[in-house]
Every structure is written in C-alpha cells, then in structure tokens.
C-alpha cells in the first residue's frame, strides 16, 4: 500500500489550503454539534426534574401548567386518591402549585421578558429532594420572600440575594435565596409562597397543578383511573416524566431540525471546498501520481490513498469543530419556551454520542467530497511520470 505518511505529509505540506478546507468542515461540524448539544441540553433541562413515581394532575385539555387552573379544594381530593404515598405522619405527599408568567425588565439589556413564577407551598423543597438553596436561605412560609433560579441570576433586575423586585405595581418581593436543581427547568423559575402569589396576582382559591408522589411507579394507572373517573372534576393525570418530555419535545425538535438544516446546507459548501482542495492538490501532483502508477501501484490503491487523504483532512476539521462545540458548554443560551412563553436558560450538553456523530459526519463529508477527485487521481496515466 501507498504509505499513509505520504498522504499525511502531503496534507501538511499545503498549509494554507489545508487550513481553509479544515476550517470549512470545522464550521459545519461546529454548527451541527452545537445544535445537537443544545437539543440535548434542552432535553436535560426540561426533563431533568421528572420522576417516574410522580404524577401531575391538571385540568383536562391543558398541555401546560400555565393553561391549567382549578379550585384549591380539589388538591385534597386528588391527594386522597389510591396510590399516593404518605409520610411518617400519614399525610399524603404532594404539592398544589400555582404558576404564572411575570413580565420583568432584563438586566443590562433594554426590554421586558417573561419569567416563570411558581407559587409553592412550604413543602415544595422537601417534595423535590434534588432542589436546594445554594445561596441565602429558604423563604419563610407566608412571607413576601422568594427564591430565584440559579440560571436567572444576573439576567433580571433585583434578582440577587438581598435585592427585591415587583410582582406587580406596589407588590414587592425580596430575594432571599438562589435555587439549584441539577440543571432542571426549576433553575429558570422564581419560587414564591403560594398564598403570596394568589393574593398578589388575583388567583385566590386557585391552583394550576397538583404533583403527587406515588407509592411506586406501578401505582400510576390506579391513581390515574381514580382521579380521572370523576368527569365533573375534569382532571387529566400524566406521569411527570411524560409531561416533561412533551414539554421539551417541541423546542428540542425545532433546535435539532434548524441545526441540521443549517449544517446540511453548510456541508454542501464544505464538501465543494474539500473537493476543490483535493482537485487542486491532485492537479499539482500529476507527476507524483504518475510515478506511483509507473512503479506499479494499482489504481485502487491510488483511489484509497486519496480518499484517505481527504478523510483525514475532514476528520481534522471535524475534530476542530467538535472541540469548538465542546467549548460551548460554558455558554448558556436563553430562549422562550414554547409551552410556557417564558424565558428558559439552556446549556449545551456535549455527549460522547454527539461528538462521535459529528466526527462521522465530518468523515462522510471527506469521503463524499474526496470521491470524485480520488477517482480522477486513480485515472492518472503512468505516462504522466515521463512528462
């Protein structure tokens, strides 16, 4: 076989064209990997807080907590249904919460953006063991104290511990702590006392959803059947994990599709770039290739060697692009969640599968971009050696 170092050194010998081609491929891989990483980040953020043994109860027909509303007296009825886990004192484990969207001023950036506000009972933190206060303290029940999600910190006015902001005009609340929850969407929410939210924003006697902890994931069907049996109440029961998957589906499909479409069109450009580079390289190496043919190297070995050369070039570009995409993990990205119409902050999640796929994509670009030039190289006549 033609030694690999021949092709490798030939790539390195043409520094400017190699760099330009690798940059084109790196750009495509960067776009693709970033889109996939963002999609993974969205799934992680919106899906991280789900538990298989949690059920969420909302008004029938509501696909999001924001659209659901029912009487607070129903909370007791829901939690009395069979299958709900009870604590040491025999009380059912669950939370009835009210959610709203607040329009708040952004920090350092003129304009107003929606923020997700969750009115929570005293047990909200205990109900979600992964959620914790990382700075400051938990709010006192029934007070005007709130927790701000970690990812919202520094993005809105008055969101630091010790500062305050208005739920509505002349209805101020003070930030006493920062909430962290393993990167879930709760980190993009403001948590306030449920009664403060109700009275402050005119939601007296109402809740948006009830989350119930089940004795086990297997109890879900019985719980659902019981809660949904009373058609007058008009409840719909969903597993929390399913609910959150649906929440993330739209956004993550959108981001993946957008990224893939952009990457696809970019990749055509990058492949043409790789093709031009290889054609140029082969044109200037006619005598070398002719010599290899004269020495007795068969056509297929020439074809393989040049395909390999283009693949290595592409993989090099791909690795650059993937490395740049990995650096995106330090960047957070805010966008409007289509289901809550409030700002949610995502991070890019690099996974081994995404990185591998990006490199495979780069390799595919190399093979497709290099195929025609490699065929041309294989067709170089050995007589070229004599010219």
């Amino acid at each position: 076989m033609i030694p690999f170092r021949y092709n490798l050194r030939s790539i390195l010998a043409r520094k400017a064209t190699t760099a330009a081609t690798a940059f084109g491929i790196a750009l495509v891989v960067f776009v693709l990997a970033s889109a996939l990483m963002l999609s993974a980040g969205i799934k992680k953020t919106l899906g991280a807080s789900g538990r298989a043994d949690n059920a969420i109860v909302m008004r029938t027909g509501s696909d999001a907590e924001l659209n659901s509303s029912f009487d607070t007296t129903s909370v007791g009825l829901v939690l009395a249904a069979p299958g709900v886990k009870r604590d040491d004192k025999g009380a059912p484990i669950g939370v009835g919460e009210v959610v709203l969207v607040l329009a708040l001023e952004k920090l350092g950036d003129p304009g107003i953006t929606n923020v997700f506000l969750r009115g929570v009972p005293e047990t909200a933190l205990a109900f979600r063991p992964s959620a914790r206060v990382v700075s400051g303290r938990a709010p006192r029940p029934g007070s005007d104290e709130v927790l701000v999600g970690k990812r919202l910190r520094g993005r809105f006015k008055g969101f630091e511990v010790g500062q305050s902001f208005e739920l509505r005009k002349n209805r101020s609340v003070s930030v006493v702590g920062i909430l962290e929850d393993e990167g879930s969407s709760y980190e993009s929410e403001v948590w306030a006392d449920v009664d403060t939210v109700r009275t402050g924003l005119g939601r007296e006697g109402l809740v948006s959803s009830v989350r119930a902890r089940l004795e086990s994931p297997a109890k879900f069907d019985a719980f659902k059947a019981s809660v949904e049996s009373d058609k007058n109440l008009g409840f719909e029961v969903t597993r929390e994990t399913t609910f959150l998957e649906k929440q993330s589906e739209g956004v993550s499909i959108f981001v993946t599709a957008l990224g893939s479409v952009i990457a696809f069109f970019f990749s055509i450009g990058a492949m043409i770039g790789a093709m031009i580079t290889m054609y140029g390289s082969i044109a200037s190496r006619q005598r070398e290739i002719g010599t290899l043919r004269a020495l007795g190297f068969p056509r297929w070995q020439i074809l393989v060697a040049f395909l390999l050369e283009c693949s290595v070039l592409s993989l090099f570009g791909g690795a650059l692009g993937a490395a740049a995409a990995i650096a995106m993990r330090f960047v957070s990205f805010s966008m409007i969640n289509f289901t809550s119409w409030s700002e949610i902050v995502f991070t890019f999640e690099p996974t081994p599968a995404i990185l591998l796929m990006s490199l495979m994509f780069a390799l595919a670009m190399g093979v497709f971009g290099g195929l025609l030039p490699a065929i041309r190289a294989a067709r170089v006549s050995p007589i070229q050696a004599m010219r």
Partner: protein
Amino acid sequence: MSESTMVRVRGLSKIYERGGEQLKVLSGLDLDLAEGTFEALMGPSGSGKSTLLNIIAGLDRPSSGTVEVKGEDISRLSESALATWRSRTLGFIFQSYNLMPVLTALENVELPLLLTKLGGAERKKRAEIALRIVGLEQRMDHYPRQLSGGQEQRVAIARAIVNDPAIIVADEPTGDLDRQSADDILTLLEKLAKDMNKTILMVTHDPVAADRATKVHRLDKGALSS
C-alpha cells in the same frame, strides 16, 4: 530468442488519433536489447524515442507488433497485470528524478518494495543497501529538497534498483544535471550493467552520455536508422 536477449521488439507500430487525423509515431520497428547491456536511444525531438521507451516499459501499448521481455509478450497483459509486471521487472529513472517531495530518501527508495510481501525491517534493509550502492548512505533521512540534483538522481537510481529488476529504463537521466553530476550518474549506470547484469535502456539527447553506452540506437521519424 537467444539466451542473452532480454527485450525483443518486432514490427512495433504506434499510431495516435488526433482530431480525426492519424499520426504515425512508430512504424514497424524491430529492436533487441541484450541482457546486461547499457544501450542508448537517440534521436531528434518527435522521433518517437519516448513512445518507444514507454511501450518497452509497459506504460503504453503498441498499435501493432509485439514486445517480448524475457520471452513474455507484455502487449497482451491486462492493465493490472502490466502494473504488477512493472513492479517486478522494471526500474525507472526519470529526467526530473520524480521523487516524492514529502518522503525522505530512504522512504522514496522503499516505495517499490511496498508492492511486495516483504516486512518493514527487510524493506528498510534493502533500501539502505540500495542507497549504499549509489553512495548516499549518509543522506538517508534527507528530503529531496535537502539534496542536490545529482544526489536526487542517485536516490532515484537506488529506487530503480531496490526491487532488483531485470531492466532499467532511463528517460534523459542526465538532462537536468551539470557535467560532473551527469558523469557520476553515467558511471553508476555503467556499473549497474556491468556488475549487476542490469539491462539498461537510456533515452538521451546528449551525445556525450550516449557515448558511454555499449550500444546506441538512433531513431528518426519512427524508424531505427542504426
């Protein structure tokens, strides 16, 4: 075919078609090359010497006639069989040396051995021996750009002999060299024929170079005149 005939060309013609016109480059040519001889092929530009060399070297095919090398008619071989035949039977020396610029002298010389079943250590050993024969054992790790023209051509000669071919074809091997370097190369070719029994066919324009050959064939308008 006598015992000592290495190459026997009979009734060789080569016709090119260009724009519907037929261009006869070689017409019914006969030529014998004896084993272990250093023979030169001379002639004016366009006389067909490069075409003849290419056909004998299995790089091009005749329009009619036969080329027998060690009794085998190579004009009947398929393209891939011809490539294998070249790798086993022939060594090439080109006017512009044709070394791979990104490979060292040793790696360039090793190239033809990559088509054999030899292992890495054995390939390296043989390439070193070939470089020693041409007097470049001190330049093994040098790249072509670090060598003079004469040294580059000597590396090319080492590459041409490394697989121990029966025939060496040389296309204007001294064309790009100064007189001293050209002399050195010609001395080396003489030695290869005399000491290693190689059959060498050299195309040249240079009468001084041709004088060093044991026999000179003159080609004019596609036919041998002597």
